[in-house]
C-alpha cells in the first residue's frame, strides 16, 4: 500500500464518519419539518422518505396540480370503478335515502367539532376543477370535480395549529390521512360533484376526497368521518393509512 492509497483510506474513513453523523442530524431536522412519512420503516423506508421529503421541499411554494379544459374530460363510461360501494347497512340505508340523513363528522384537534350535512357543505364556498386522476397501476382519466376546499372546513372548525395530519374514515374498512400541507392546499377538495352532477355512487357518493397532487388511491370515497390529529401512530398499524398494510406507500405523489 503506497502513501497515496493510505491517505485515501484515511480520507474515506473520515468522510464515512462525517456522513453517518450528518445523516443523523439530517434525520432530526427532517422530522422537525415534517419530512418523514409515517411509513418510514422497512427496507423501502429510506426510499419513501427521500421521495416524500424531496417532493415536499420541491412543492414548498404550494404548487398547483395541472388543470385541463372541459373538452379533455374523459367519458364516464370509460373510467374503471375500483371496488364496490360499502355494503354496510348504515351506508346502504343512507344511499336509499339519497343521503338526506348523512352527516360528515369532523372532530379531533379542533375548537368546534361539527356534524355537516350535504346541504351545509354545498352552502360553503365551492371550487370546481378539471384535474387528472392517475392510478398507481398506470391508467389515468380527467374529470371535473366540485366541492368545498378542505382548508375551508378545517378553518371553520378551528383546527389546531399543532395538528399534523387529517385522517379520513370512509364507510368501508379503508382509511387514509394527509399531512397539513396537502390538507390545506387549495385543490384539496371534499367533492360532492363530478362533471356537473352529484358524484355517482361508484365514484364515492355522497362525498369523496380529491387530492390531485397525489395518485388515485389517496382520493378516498364514501367519506363519513374526518379527524384532525398530531399523530397517526395510534391508528391502525400506525403507518398513516391502510395502504402500507398492503404494501402501498402512504405518500402517493409519484
Amino acid at each position, binding site marked *: 500500500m503506497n502513501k497515496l492509497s493510505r491517505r485515501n483510506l484515511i480520507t474515506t474513513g473520515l468522510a464515512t464518519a462525517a456522513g453517518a453523523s450528518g445523516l443523523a442530524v439530517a434525520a432530526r431536522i427532517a422530522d422537525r419539518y415534517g419530512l418523514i412519512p409515517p411509513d418510514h420503516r422497512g*427496507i*423501502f423506508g*429510506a*426510499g*419513501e422518505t*427521500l*421521495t416524500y421529503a424531496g*417532493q415536499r421541499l*420541491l*412543492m414548498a*411554494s404550494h*404548487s*398547483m*396540480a*395541472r388543470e*385541463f379544459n372541459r373538452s*379533455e374530460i*374523459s*367519458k364516464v*363510461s*370509460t*373510467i*374503471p370503478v375500483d371496488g364496490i360501494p360499502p355494503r354496510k347497512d348504515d351506508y346502504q340505508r343512507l344511499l336509499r335515502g339519497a343521503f338526506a340523513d348523512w352527516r360528515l363528522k369532523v372532530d379531533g384537534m379542533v375548537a368546534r367539532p361539527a356534524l355537516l350535512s350535504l346541504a351545509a357543505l354545498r352552502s360553503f364556498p365551492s371550487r370546481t376543477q378539471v384535474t*387528472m386522476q*392517475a*392510478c*398507481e*397501476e*398506470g*391508467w*389515468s*382519466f*380527467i374529470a371535473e370535480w366540485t366541492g368545498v376546499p378542505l382548508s375551508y372546513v378545517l378553518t371553520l372548525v378551528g383546527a389546531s395549529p399543532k395538528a399534523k395530519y387529517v385522517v379520513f374514515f370512509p364507510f368501508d374498512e379503508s382509511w387514509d390521512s394527509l399531512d397539513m400541507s396537502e390538507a390545506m392546499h387549495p385543490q384539496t377538495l371534499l367533492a360532492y360533484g363530478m362533471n356537473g352532477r352529484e358524484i355517482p355512487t361508484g365514484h364515492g357518493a355522497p362525498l369523496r376526497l380529491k387530492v*390531485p*397532487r*397525489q*395518485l388515485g388511491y389517496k382520493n378516498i370515497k364514501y367519506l363519513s368521518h374526518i379527524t384532525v390529529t398530531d399523530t397517526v401512530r395510534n391508528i391502525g398499524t400506525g403507518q398513516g393509512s391502510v395502504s402500507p398494510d*398492503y*404494501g*402501498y*406507500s402512504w405518500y402517493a*405523489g*409519484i
Partner: protein
Amino acid sequence: MIAPLAMADSLYLSSLAGPSLDAADHPRHAATVRITHWINTFSFFGLLLSGFAILLAHPRFYWGETGTVGTPSLFRLPLPFVLTGQTGWGRSLHFSSAWVCVLSGAFYVVSGLVTGHFRRDLLPRAADLGWRPVAKVISKSLRWERPGAGESPTYNVVQRLTYLGVIFVLFPVAIWTGLAMSPAVTSVFPFLADAAGGVQSARTLHFFAAGFLVLFLLLHIAMVCLAGFRARVWSMIAGRYE
C-alpha cells in the same frame, strides 16, 4: 449511469498504448467509474424487475393524457392481465432503486466531467465522425479483427457513441418521462408532462427508453462475454487485469 458498464475493447491511456504498461499506476477503469458501475448494475436490475412488476398491472399503452381499459390503446403487451397486485412492492422498489441510480449516476456524470473521463474516453474524435470510419469499425468488428498496431486501442467510435447515447440520451429520457408521471412533480414543473405530450405519452416513452436500455444491456453483456468475461469483469472490479 450504466455507461461505465463494460468494455468490449481495450481501454489504455492512449499515450501509453501497450498491454505491458504499469497497471497499478494507470488503472484500466478509475475507481469512481468502477464503483458507480456496480451500484448502477444493482439499481438497474431493481428498476427492471420492479418496472416489469408495475407493467403487469396494466400492460396497455396510450398516447396523450388519459387512457383506461375502456379506451383504445396504442398497443398492448401479451402479458397476463391478472397479476394486478404487484404494484405495491414494485413501485417501492422502483423508486428506491431510482434514487440510488440517479444519485450515483449524477455523481458519475459530475466526476466524469471534472476528471475529463468523458472528453478523454468517450468523446469521439472529429476525424472518426463520419459514415466511413463508423462503417470501417463495424466491418472490422464483424471480421473479428483486433485494433492494428498503429491504432489507438481505446474505445472505438461506435462504442463511444453508444455509451454517450446511454448516458446522455436514454437515461435522461427515462428520468424525465418517469418524473412526468408524478402528479406532485408536474405540479411544480408542468412542462415535463406537456413536453412529452401528456402523462400517458410519458409512460409510453418511459417504456421505450427502458426497452432500449435493456437492448444496450444485452449487447453489453454479449460483448463482455465475447471479449473475455472473467478478465473484463475483473477489470471493472479491481481496475486492472490479473
